[in-house]
């Protein structure tokens, strides 16, 4: 059977999230033509770079894109990771503490605390961040795959405890970061574009190679569709799940790094707040079923972009920040409606009614 070109496009995993994105952008173009304005700005530290809403969407949306990329693998195995936000906070706290020049110092004065210097080499800080996040993922993975606790319950533990751990690390304080090289991740530019965009691209590429150039992607999908059959086929389904959660923790850690760098501080209570929910929404928008199975990392990343575009749009319309959640609820409702079987069938019928007439030409 030959599939029509339209059908092929509609079957693509990127179709729906891209459609959603374009709808929002078209809306912006109509309501606020200045939305797409791009300019060049001179930054005293990072030189000339682009600025504008579109750049902001990608720069500010980068942590969510990372969280969504990690969440995709977990959801594809049929699980969910509610602790992503907490992992972001832990990672941010880890970075802030290690940067703090007062670390291990007996004599603490304000002069030391606010000095633009650190005693820990930057690569060590980054590694420690990533290690902390991956370890969190390992913990979740062990609870889910070995202790066989339901993913939602298992990751709920770290979701609650994680923010406590983050506060323990920073000794209960909101820690301000004064170390300029660290700011680069969230504020720097390469060739006029934010560094965070490049980080997302690298992680996306790494993730893609990890799942599509090895058998891991196939195994993850297989586990998500039918874990028992997968086990019967000789695949260690426990390790597949473990890996997915570790990858999710790893991505959360990078998100924490960028976020803390962007806001110059680590706040155990608020870093990455509600990110797990936005990440789940991004993944769902990317067409991965909550029950697991087929997934697309790129589609999830686009899902995250949609959410941020929506957020920026709402702000630029002048909706107050405290009404954002209500507006987001509308988005969630729309997404659920748009993705329902009913709508899809309706769409298919709409397209197909036109399709066959071309062929038969009676």
């Amino acid at each position, binding site marked *: 059977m030959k599939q029509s070109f339209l059908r092929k496009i509609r079957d693509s995993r990127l179709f729906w999230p891209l459609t959603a994105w374009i709808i929002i952008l078209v809306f912006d173009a109509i309501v606020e033509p200045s939305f797409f304005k791009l300019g060049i700005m001179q930054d005293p530290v990072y030189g000339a770079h682009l600025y504008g809403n579109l750049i902001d969407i990608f720069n500010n949306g980068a942590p969510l894109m990372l969280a969504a990329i990690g969440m995709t693998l977990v959801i594809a195995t049929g699980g969910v990771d509610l602790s992503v936000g907490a992992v972001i906070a832990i990672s941010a706290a880890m970075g802030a503490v290690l940067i703090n020049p007062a670390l291990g110092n007996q004599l603490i004065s304000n002069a030391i605390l606010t000095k633009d210097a650190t005693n820990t080499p930057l690569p060590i800080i980054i590694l420690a961040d990533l290690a902390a996040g991956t370890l969190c993922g390992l913990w979740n993975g062990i609870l889910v795959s070995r202790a066989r606790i339901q993913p939602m319950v298992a990751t709920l533990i770290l979701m609650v405890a994680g923010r406590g751990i983050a506060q323990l690390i920073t000794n209960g304080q909101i820690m301000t970061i004064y170390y300029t090289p660290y700011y680069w991740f969230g504020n720097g530019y390469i060739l006029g574009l934010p560094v965070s965009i490049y980080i997302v691209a690298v992680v996306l590429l790494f993730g893609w190679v990890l799942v599509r150039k090895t058998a*891991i992607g196939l195994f993850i999908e297989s586990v998500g569709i039918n874990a028992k059959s997968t086990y019967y*086929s*000789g695949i260690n389904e426990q390790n597949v799940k473990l890996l997915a959660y570790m990858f999710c923790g790893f991505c959360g850690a990078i998100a924490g790094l960028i976020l803390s760098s962007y806001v110059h501080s680590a706040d155990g209570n608020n870093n990455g707040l509600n990110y797990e929910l936005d990440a789940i929404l991004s993944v769902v928008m990317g067409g991965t079923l909550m029950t697991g199975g087929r997934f697309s990392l790129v589609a999830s990343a686009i899902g995250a972009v949609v959410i941020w575009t929506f957020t920026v749009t709402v702000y630029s319309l002048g909706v107050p920040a405290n009404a954002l959640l209500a507006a987001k609820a509308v988005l969630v409702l729309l997404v659920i409606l748009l993705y329902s079987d009913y709508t899809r069938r309706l769409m298919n019928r709409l397209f197909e009614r036109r399709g066959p007439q071309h062929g038969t030409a009676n």
Partner: protein
Amino acid sequence: MTDTQNVVVMKGISKSFPGVVALENVDFVLRRGEIHALMGENGAGKSTLIKVLTGVEQPDKGTIELNGKLVQVRSPQHSQELGISTVYQEVNLCTNISVAENIMLGHEPHRLGSIDWRKMNELANKAINRLGINIDVSHPLGNYSVAIQQMVAITRALEVLSAKVLIFDEPTSSLDIHETNLLFDVMRKLKSEGIGIVFITHFLDQVYQVANRITVLRNGKLVGTFDAASLPRVELVAKMLGRSLTELDAISKVKSPEGEKKEKDHLVNVSGLGLKGSLEPVDLELYAHEILGIAGLLGSGRTEMAGLIFGIDSPDSGSLTVSGKKVGHFSPLESLKRGIALCPEDRKAEGVVGDLTIRENIILALQARYGWFKFMSRQKQDEIAEKYIKLLGIVTPSSDQLVKNLSGGNQQKVILARWLATNPKVLILDEPTRGIDVGAKTEIQKLVLELAEEGKSCVFISSEMDEVLRISDRIAVMRDRKKVAEYPGNVDGKTLIHTMAGES
């Protein structure tokens, strides 16, 4: 013959799905008080016809008359209102509420605004007694066997929905012999009360046990409706297959009693292997070039034994020696590496990965052996998939079709292909022909014979005794979670049945 004798008359039913014509101008007439078997290979159109009758699908063309009146069945619920009910092999009732509640759901007797429990139990009890069943209706449904659960479903259909037409869709697949006979008694009773019964099954025996008439479908077309009494078995099979009988005969020729075959390599030694509550210690030997048949009823321990040898569970007693090496660590992956393969009993839950493609399903086990990082190239995957699609005759337009869209027989072949791709020495087949059509069944039996010929050691587990007798070189009998006897392949069926049933 008056028209009122017919309860359902379906005329000229056609239905196509994108790319497939599922039904083409099919007529079907169900009389009052008859058991009407609906037969055909997978993909013949049986289930589509039933879906049209029960309102799940709307026909593209054709009419349905119910009691002489033209009707349009709009939905499954509407069909129930019209008096058409279906009993499935997996009962769709709520196992956690009581039998009485299941029967009366939505029609509970009320007293003073609340449910009158005593009256409800009384009514339910009376209703189910009508079928000759005596159980405590206040117990949760889940406490009872599938057979009883089916009886509850039947009772509900009769009492609450006052069904005039009952459709039995593979009702006996998960029943043992006694339960099946019990069900047949009930079916005969209903027949005598004037209910029209449509009976769908893959068991030919059962068709001849209960059916009055047989309608055969093939490739979405009507082959004909026949009186069961005047249609010999072989002819029925021939009509279903639409091909000559020689192919079916070939199977008994392949395994003619040629006595002891060549020198047989001793491959596997099972010694006292057991697991508490699952399998009592079993001794067994497997040889190359040989088919070991395992005969036993449901729950006899045959599946548990297969699971232990393949490493689904770890045994707590005894030992397993494969190719001279004692097995230390039990897991499917280790078994795979040792050259043991298992086609599991529950094809849907343990076998296929429905939303993956045929290609992905076929390479799954081989890829598992290669590990995470030695990923087969797409080209190599395609080669392997194409090779086995051709070798096993899997019917599909391409290897990129989702496995869930295949018929049962083709799904089974995909699982076989998955394991053959790993080139195992020992192949354990747990009910490989269950629920698949006659044609595919024969093909799979033939394939197993060929594999043994090539030198593989095959373990063939089946509840169909004919099948076991026909292809096995040796037959082990299981009963009550232990192995009770072992016979040479030429043992007669009577002895086997007696051993299985535990009568001396």
